[in-house]
């Protein structure tokens, strides 16, 4: 897992809450900063890449650990 600036654990929350909370967290960050997003909703394997693509916040890393999904998103310039 690479380094990050902000961590957001949405364990136990279901769709669309992880997306909505990630959106909020990214809004408070500055361009180039990295968000470590932890999700237990399995739909996130598809949803987070879609969110990344549509909002212009690159998805740098995806992994699974202890039954949880981990994503590193970089706050985009826009």
């Amino acid at each position, binding site marked *: 897992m690479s380094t990050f600036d902000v961590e957001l654990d949405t364990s*136990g*929350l*279901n*769709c*669309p*809450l992880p*997306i*909505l909370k990630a*959106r909020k967290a990214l809004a408070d960050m500055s361009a180039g900063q990295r968000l470590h997003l932890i999700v237990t*909703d399995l739909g996130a394997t598809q949803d987070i890449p879609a*969110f990344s693509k*549509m*909002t212009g916040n690159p998805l740098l890393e995806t992994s699974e650990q202890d039954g949880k999904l981990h994503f590193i998103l970089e706050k985009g310039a826009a």
Partner: protein
Amino acid sequence: MAKKLAIIASKGTLDGAYPPFLLASTAAALGFEVKIFFTFYGLQLLRKELNLKVSPLGNPAMPMPVPVPTIIQILPGMEWFATWMMKRKIKQKGVASIEDLRDICVESGVELVACQMTVDLFDFSHDDFIDGLTYGGAATFLEFSSTADTTLYI
């Protein structure tokens, strides 16, 4: 230019409330401009105090803990029980409440349009509904949907 999502919300049940508010709040998070047009029973989703229910009656696909024959489903209290059960599940599974999703929609700038014709039809008053609504008709929706990227009837 932002993508646009246009939704017609015509259902006023607890389960029927999820698709419009869930898709609208997510779309707003993805940068869409969103309008939801509430018509007929969908107007119930705009009440100040939400009292949404779900009924197993006429809904054979609704999962029940034990099979409940239709003749039993008409008994008083069955709708209350089904609603209580659904709300408990929603909480247990970390699913957002309709109240929360609606708040998020309002906060993220989703425009909520109430169908004035249905307001008149059901003798509702604007005081029954939350503040910040737009009241309009078919042309209001069609003008927006004519340039929308996605249009949904729910």
